[in-house]
């Protein structure tokens, strides 16, 4: 029994190594999302085309809220996916033009195509703060009741769509079906 104590340092070392080993693979950039299962923040703003917009104008069905900016390179990477989703009518996409300039945003939409129902013009990042955004691109999955159900920080490409969003949407649909 007393010999057991000689193993205490080894056991402690193994335990510490396991904890630190796991720590190596955690993403320190991943912030806990505070808004999951909470309603989308209230807003009364304008679109990049200057029409007035508020929560009432959002789609009644499930939709994506995509935070983008003309300065944002990864947004170009996910852009084809958003275009496809909108064109094939898979899910409506609403844009948040985050900390951008109106003329640059409009140019960007002209050049690359516009997948958005509309883009909320958030030049001061005020809506962004309420959403807890810390950089474009970010994509929120919002259900028909205007409640945020999922948040994806980073590029939403076809792979992410198939592996993350499609299952999440299927799960939400199954939840609301019965």
């Amino acid at each position: 029994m007393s010999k057991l104590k000689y193993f205490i340092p080894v056991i402690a070392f193994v335990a510490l190594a396991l904890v630190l080993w796991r720590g190596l693979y955690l993403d320190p950039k991943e912030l806990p999302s505070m808004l999951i299962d909470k309603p989308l923040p209230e807003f009364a703003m304008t679109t990049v085309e200057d029409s007035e917009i508020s929560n009432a104008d959002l789609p009644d069905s499930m939709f994506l809220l995509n935070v983008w900016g003309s300065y944002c390179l990864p947004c170009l990477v996910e852009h084809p996916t958003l275009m496809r989703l909108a064109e094939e009518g898979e899910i409506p996409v609403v844009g948040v033009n985050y900390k951008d300039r109106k003329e640059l945003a409009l140019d960007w939409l002209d050049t690359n195509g516009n997948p958005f129902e509309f883009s909320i013009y958030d030049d001061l990042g005020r809506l962004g703060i309420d959403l807890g955004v810390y950089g474009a691109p970010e994509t929120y999955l919002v259900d028909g009741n205007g409640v945020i159900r999922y948040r994806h920080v980073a590029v939403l490409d076809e792979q992410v769509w198939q592996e993350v969003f499609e299952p999440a949407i299927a799960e939400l649909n199954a939840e609301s079906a019965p």
Partner: protein
Amino acid sequence: MEKPIAAVLCLATVLAALLAMQTGYAQVDTFEFETDEQQRRFRQLSDELRCPQCQNANLSGSSGGVAEDLRREIHRMIIEGMSNAEIEQFMFERYGDFIFYRPRLRSDTLLLWFGPLIFLVIGGVVAWTISRRARQTDAANTEQLDPNQQQRLDKLLKNGESRS
């Protein structure tokens, strides 16, 4: 031999100076406050809150877009008369615990707050046990020799003297 030490000291001084300078690089904003107290609170809050975009910078030390927006929000809230607790709650609701350099005391942060204390206690107990045991061994060693041992010691000492 002395030259490398001098060089190391010199390098250390330069590094320390650089480090000190870095923390001095605060973002200069042109926020206006009604009182010095408000300004002091602004500085305290933007020093204690962490920039969500960056890994290791507080709001006052970051030039990131979000940090800029959050400084503006803090300024607005201070002018509107919100308390520090209310402003921290506002930040928590949006960015969670990540935003705090000084995490809140909760059941799941207890280990974070008191873990070092626990390790200190463990270390203290271990150090105390070791030193107590050492003292006991010392005490055992100073005990009187039995006659046999004494005889042997005398013999050894005598041999040693005759040899020298």
